[in-house]
């Protein structure tokens, strides 16, 4: 068959089921040489599953799978790599105990006389790292760098395979604006070299900027396709959720009440040289913007007592409090929906019920006895008010989509009626529908007088949701922006430490 006439990659009728779940119900997809194809869909639509099949990580149950017109079947990752297909996973997959060079070349180490050729590996790694704009020594341990930078290492790793098809599954979910821009450069550069990219993202703005074509999945089936000129927000949303969504950030103006949280010269463990001061009031939604690694997560964790402060004062409703652990934080009315939902937010192998009631168990218990009625009520309230999609309360949290998992996290905290809600990247990896619901919820809670402090790396989100925002840069608060001062440019200047321009 003639190579140029048939698509580089073509799948059709692909089916895949997991115990109890039919993840793909006969989807199809094709990819041309030098094309950036965006793949979008709600959480659980089957995007990652398809990509894992393409990359040889999992076998398909049935379906037709061709590369350059030739029927192929991949038994493992190496088969896929041989055909030039490389996948950057949704979850990070670096080995924290190995250095960057070792991670980039893991599984494909250059060898000399049977031994690993370290010098060659280092040389090449430097090249690939600089391509993704990462200036770190190649012998840095992967575990010692922040998530965002790890993501860039993953991309460098994929580049180093000389892939013809590069699959990126939500690559920007933990990248900051600046790193995202670097990534876009990389992707555009690849396209110009004739490399094809499959790009999965929930950030429709990115899709619009990058994609030559968009394929949409819904419930494990193809829901439609958009050519470059048809790609716009509304069209994508319509195909994804099957209906139109009204105004995304439907904000009201809040009138802040008394201050709930006020920090004075708080010192966080990683940047003790930069004392932090800020304030959040009743009914106010305050954003914290900044680049990845700016110390925003740690700020929230310090407030919540996960990493206790080294100094400074923290006041809740005007009273100085010492918070040494999450328990103390909860007892003064603080709740945190953490950045790493699976590690910190939930106990994945436990049920929706057990997760929803975990923080409130002790409050509802009498002398340590489980109060099963209260537990059921808490769960019921969470599922109802959050509109959590679950077959029943006993479903394992692991089997729910990202959006629904995040809703459980929020639900379990709302049962505690906190005064102050801390949200760390509340919509990371969450589809548009769920995102919108979370924004609505934030609105509603603020309207009821709750103080909300949220960290976000998505510019749109900060611009859209915040009444006021702090911007962080390398561990310090580089500026505070009121509603009218909020603009993309102002945030970027502060976030990159360009204080003069701000």
């Amino acid at each position, binding site marked *: 068959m003639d190579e140029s006439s048939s698509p580089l990659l073509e799948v059709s009728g692909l089916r895949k*089921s997991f*115990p*109890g779940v*039919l993840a793909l119900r006969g989807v199809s997809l094709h990819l041309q040489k030098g094309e950036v194809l965006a793949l979008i869909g709600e959480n659980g639509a089957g995007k990652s599953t398809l990509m894992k099949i393409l990359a040889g990580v999992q076998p398909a149950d049935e379906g037709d799978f061709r590369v350059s017109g030739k029927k192929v079947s991949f038994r493992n990752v190496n088969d896929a790599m041989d055909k030039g297909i490389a996948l950057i996973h949704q979850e990070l997959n670096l080995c924290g105990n190995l250095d960057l060079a070792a991670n980039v070349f893991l599984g494909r180490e250059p060898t000399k006389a049977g031994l690993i050729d370290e010098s060659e590996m280092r040389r090449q790694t430097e090249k690939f790292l600089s391509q993704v704009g990462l200036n770190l020594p190649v012998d840095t341990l992967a575990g010692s760098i922040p998530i965002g930078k790890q993501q860039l290492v993953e991309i460098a790793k994929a580049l180093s395979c000389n892939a013809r098809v590069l699959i990126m599954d939500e690559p920007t979910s933990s990248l900051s604006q600046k790193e995202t821009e670097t990534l876009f450069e990389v992707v555009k550069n690849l396209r110009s070299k004739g490399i094809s990219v499959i790009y999965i993202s929930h950030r429709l703005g990115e899709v619009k900027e990058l994609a030559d074509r968009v394929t949409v999945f819904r419930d494990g089936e193809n829901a439609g396709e958009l050519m470059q000129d048809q790609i716009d927000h509304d069209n994508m949303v319509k195909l994804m959720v099957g209906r139109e969504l009204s105004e995304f950030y439907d904000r009201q103006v809040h009138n802040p009440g008394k201050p709930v949280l006020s920090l004075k010269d708080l010192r966080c463990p990683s940047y003790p040289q930069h004392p932090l001061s800020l304030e959040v009031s009743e009914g106010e939604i305050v954003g914290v913007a900044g680049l990845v690694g700016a110390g925003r997560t740690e700020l929230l964790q310090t407030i*919540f007592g*996960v990493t206790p402060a080294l100094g400074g004062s923290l006041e809740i409703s005007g009273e100085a409090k010492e918070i040494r*652990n*999450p*328990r103390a*934080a*909860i*007892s003064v009315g603080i709740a*945190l929906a*953490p950045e790493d939902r699976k*590690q*910190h*937010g*939930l*106990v*994945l*192998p*436990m049920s929706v019920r*057990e997760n929803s009631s*975990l*923080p409130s*168990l*002790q409050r509802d*218990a009498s002398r*340590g*006895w*489980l109060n099963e009625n209260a537990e059921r009520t808490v769960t019921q309230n969470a599922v109802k008010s959050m509109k959590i999609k679950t077959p029943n309360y006993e479903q394992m949290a692991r089997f729910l989509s990202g959006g629904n998992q995040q809703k459980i996290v929020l639900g*379990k905290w709302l049962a505690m009626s906190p005064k102050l809600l801390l949200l760390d990247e509340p919509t990371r990896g969450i589809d548009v529908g769920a995102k919108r619901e979370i924004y609505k919820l934030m609105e509603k809670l603020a309207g009821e007088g709750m103080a909300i402090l949220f960290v976000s790396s998505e510019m749109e989100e900060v611009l859209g949701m915040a009444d006021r925002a702090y911007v962080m840069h390398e561990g310090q608060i580089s500026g505070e922006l009121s509603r009218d001062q909020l603009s993309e440019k102002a945030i970027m200047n502060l976030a990159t430490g360009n204080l003069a321009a701000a």
Partner: protein
Amino acid sequence: MKKNVLGIFILLVAIFVITAVINPKFLNAYNMQNLIKWSSLYAVMSLGVAFVIITGGIDLSIGSVVGLVSVVLSICLKLEGMDPWSAIGITLVLSLGIGLLHGLLITKAKVQPFVVTLCGLLVYRSMGRWLTDNQSIGPMPYEEDAGYKNLEQIQGLDFLFSGKIALGSFNLPTPALFILVLSIAAAVFLRRTIWGRYLFALGNNEEGTRYSGIDTDRMKILAYVLCSLFAGIAGILFAFELDSVQPAQTGEFYELYAIAAAVLGGCSLRGGEGSVLGVVIAAAVIRLIYNSINMVGISTHLEFGILGLVILLGVIGDEFLKKAVARKQAAQKT
């Protein structure tokens, strides 16, 4: 819950029936009493270690704790002539203290449970030998012993911990009552109190549990304290059952039996899983295997081998059964 213990229950019944067919004397009341007695004794330790395994930890020191506790109890009762109930109290406090020490080393000094309890295994064994100059000792005092004045009370304890209660023609060994009470308590604790829920939660995801405002360190310490306490109770039961304690030997390898029973009974060494009923049945299975080997008349040189094979096949079979059940449920859904 129920399907979790199905596999191990089938195993129990199978070995039971096979042995009874080969040697009908297996079924006589005396043998059943002994089987119940030994199963109860080992089940106490297995239950204890289950708490720790549920949190994702391990305790290798159980056997040495059994040894040390029975040594200390014997010294207090026989040589020191201490008030018998105080002696019991001291041994329980000792085992609580050991558990607390383990818990603190694991949570505060951040030493891995395997290492802490491996060192415990060595240290407590050594202490027992040192305390007795490595001479055998038992809890029952003889005329020349200081404890002889408390003989009656000690005999009372002996009945409590290793006596038999006549139920018609069947003599129920008292350890069976202990395991009954302890396993109900353990089941209620694990399934009906918030602490039990916390143990399961932290076994599945420690960080996540801590982020939900639970003092995971304290809960882990609790698990190790319970484990050592149960080992201590087992030590008392063993001391009275055997009337004889070899400081260098008593309890040797028991941690492995206990862990094997916990695993065979459905606890996952990864943490977050486990059922009291399963563990108790599994402890009974292990004792049953020993008894069957003797009743059938197989060479004692093969005992270990058969036990090892049954545990391995039991665990594999159980896994297989669970998968089959899951597949069936999945098939029903679609």
